[in-house]
């Protein structure tokens, strides 16, 4: 493997509190040195990064790679290429596949396909309950032995408080987070978009913020009871942010993530029955966005995760009520989020932390930093490059995004995983 030297970039490494212009030398897939004016070794490839940000590869705590079972929507091969294109070098894939990842052989399967066909690191998440049915516990210990990094019935809430309590108690020795899709089934009922005047205008059944908040409140209480690490997926409402803020103040071991779409898009995107804006939890309001940004800033919300949810065209080209929920988000994440930075609403270094060091902390992993000796997982992005989202150029099979055709400012130029260039922007 030849050496690689990245020269003159703005190096942001939140784990090390680094934000300076300099060079990085990569040898044998690892970070060899970081400093000013590093001299290149003889056989090193030189990459000019002036005016660009050089940071640890992004870590996505929450995506859907759809394999096994829904390979027409996405595969580990296409999903990891989409990740690379979006600057992600580590993705945690949710177990709502078919069959759901609820036992050891299935975890092994995902890992082996990822090894053979993936281009970035894939960390599987296992089910909390067998078959994601919410009735009995999945084989949590065996899945942990096989390498899952957390447990989730994502897409479904564990309806039974009793079973949820058992799940978090049982998994206590494993030290892995329980990642909960918080949505009270009864309150959510047939809801397909945020409850409010736009749902009223469109005659669509509303999903109240309370459906999320009631569920989060229950789980916070259970986490408090058991002392287990609870991670709340895709937080979308102001009330949820407040619940988590208060819980953290009390010392409850709770962490939370938010998606780029919940940080940047409102329910108005649904007007005209835009099925590409149908997502669960639904797009909310500007008030919620403001609270989510506040939550990122004060540490209430730890990480940004895409909830990349690829679907086929026909899953979306139908009546709104019938359409699948989800946004293909890996490839637009940075551009969407940089919009907040350009608006002055989010600090660039904070954004990088929420995509790198913070999710690494939740996973308890050593990557997500540019410290010497770390795996050379890196993202190089141009914070000012304007580009137009074109789903035809997506690596993901999922072309379902409400952002198609829109201009974003901020583009991933190069993604390096274990010292290998896995994505490079072609000009």
């Amino acid at each position: 493997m030849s050496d690689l030297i990245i020269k003159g970039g703005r190096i942001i490494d939140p784990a090390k509190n680094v934000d300076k212009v300099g060079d990085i030398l990569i040898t044998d897939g690892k970070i060899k040195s970081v400093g000013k004016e590093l001299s290149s070794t003889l056989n090193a490839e030189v990459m000019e990064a002036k005016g660009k940000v050089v940071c640890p590869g992004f870590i996505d705590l929450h995506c859907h790679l759809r394999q096994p079972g829904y390979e027409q929507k996405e595969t580990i091969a296409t999903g990891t290429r989409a990740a690379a294109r979006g600057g992600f070098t580590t993705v945690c894939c949710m177990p709502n596949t078919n069959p759901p990842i609820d036992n050891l052989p299935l975890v092994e399967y995902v890992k082996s396909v990822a090894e053979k066909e993936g281009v970035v690191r894939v960390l599987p998440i296992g089910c909390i309950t067998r078959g994601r049915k919410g009735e009995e516990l999945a084989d949590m210990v065996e899945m942990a032995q096989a390498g899952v990094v957390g447990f989730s019935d994502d897409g479904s809430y564990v309806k039974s408080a009793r079973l949820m309590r058992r799940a978090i108690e049982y998994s206590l020795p494993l030290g892995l987070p329980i990642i909960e899709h918080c949505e009270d089934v009864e309150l959510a009922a047939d809801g397909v978009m945020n409850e409010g005047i736009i749902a009223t205008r469109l005659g669509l059944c509303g999903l109240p913020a309370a459906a999320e908040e009631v569920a989060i409140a229950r789980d916070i209480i259970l986490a408090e009871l058991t002392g287990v690490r609870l991670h709340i997926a895709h937080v979308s409402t102001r009330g949820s942010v407040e619940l988590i803020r208060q819980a953290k103040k009390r010392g409850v071991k709770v962490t939370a993530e938010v998606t780029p779409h919940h940080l940047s898009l409102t329910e108005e995107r649904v007007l005209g029955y835009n099925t590409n804006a149908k997502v669960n939890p639904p797009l909310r309001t500007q008030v919620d966005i403001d609270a989510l940004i506040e939550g990122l800033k004060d540490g209430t919300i730890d990480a940004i995760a895409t909830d990349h949810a690829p679907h086929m065209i026909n899953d979306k080209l139908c009546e709104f009520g019938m359409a699948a929920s989800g946004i293909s988000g890996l490839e637009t994440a940075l551009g969407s989020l940089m919009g907040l930075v350009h608006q002055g609403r989010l600090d660039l270094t904070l954004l990088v932390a929420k995509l790198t060091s913070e999710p690494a902390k939740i996973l308890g992993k050593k990557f997500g930093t540019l410290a010497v000796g770390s795996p050379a997982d890196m993202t190089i992005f141009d914070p000012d490059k304007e580009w137009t989202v074109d789903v035809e150029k997506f690596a993901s099979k999922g072309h379902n995004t409400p952002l198609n055709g829109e201009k974003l400012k901020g583009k991933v130029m190069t993604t390096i995983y274990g010292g290998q260039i896995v994505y490079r922007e072609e000009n």
Partner: protein
Amino acid sequence: MLSPYQGERGEMGIMDKEAVAQVRDTSAWKHHHVLDVDDFSVAEIELVMQTTDAMKEVLARPIKKVPTLRGKTVVTLFYEASTRTRGSFELAAKNLSADVVNMTAQASSISKGESLIDTLNTLEAIGADMIVMRHPLSGAHYCAAPHVKANLINAGDGWHAHPTQALLDLYTIQKHKGTVAGIKITIVGDIKHSRVAHSNIWCLSKMGAKVMLCAPPTLLPAGLDEPAPYFPQAEIETDIEKAVRDADVVMELRLQKERMQSGLLPGLREFIGGYQLNKERLALAKPDAIVMHPGPVNENIELAADVLHGARSVVNEQVANGVAVRMALLYLLAGSKEL
């Protein structure tokens, strides 16, 4: 294309000259599809009203048929049961000499993978020039419209819209009140799940009426406290006596039985106690107030029998006007440039 009034060897001349004159200028008409009234201009709504007058004149004749749609095929595609709306559209199309094909689809046949767009394209392929569709899912027509060349007319979609009902209600009110501008119209009942209410709120507000909504809180839609800019402003009143007081029009909505099962109401008795329009409550409205209902009426639930069959009830007029309004829309669509 020529206006349907021209080039037919003066066949439309059998229409009253004055009536024809009223609708000769159809330049205000902009729609290729009729999906809802929320995107109708006041001028378009007024044109529909004028055209309906002309159609009423046709319907008053011994031979109530004109050749406007001769050689055109109108397909009605209903994913939900309907008697009056479907029959009304069918008669409207036949009165304009169209060939009419009625297709029934089970709501249960709506499923992922069975594309609504494919179904509509198939109807076009067999020769449909206009498709009248009712669908249980809100917005179904909006998903289909960009992919359909035939004129698509919404005969009701989910909780969302029922534009022809709103237009026939407006027409009926105007016949009695002259204008809706400034008058108080109280809509009572299951507002939340009512596409009739939704389209009426748009249409009547646009034409200047003061709309008051009266329902138990569980049957009111969310967000009405701050509706702008997505929904018209309407007053809310949960007490029917206050809501009906001094009203020029009281419109009751049909109550679906399943509302009790889903916990929105404890039972019929309380609904009747709180929201039925009876003689005593009607007496609180203006002396010349009219009583409306989109039908079918649950007699003695939404309307007391003596109110439904009383002198102030215009429920049957609504049905009669429905045919004329739908003729007017089919007529205007036939003349739309894109056809």
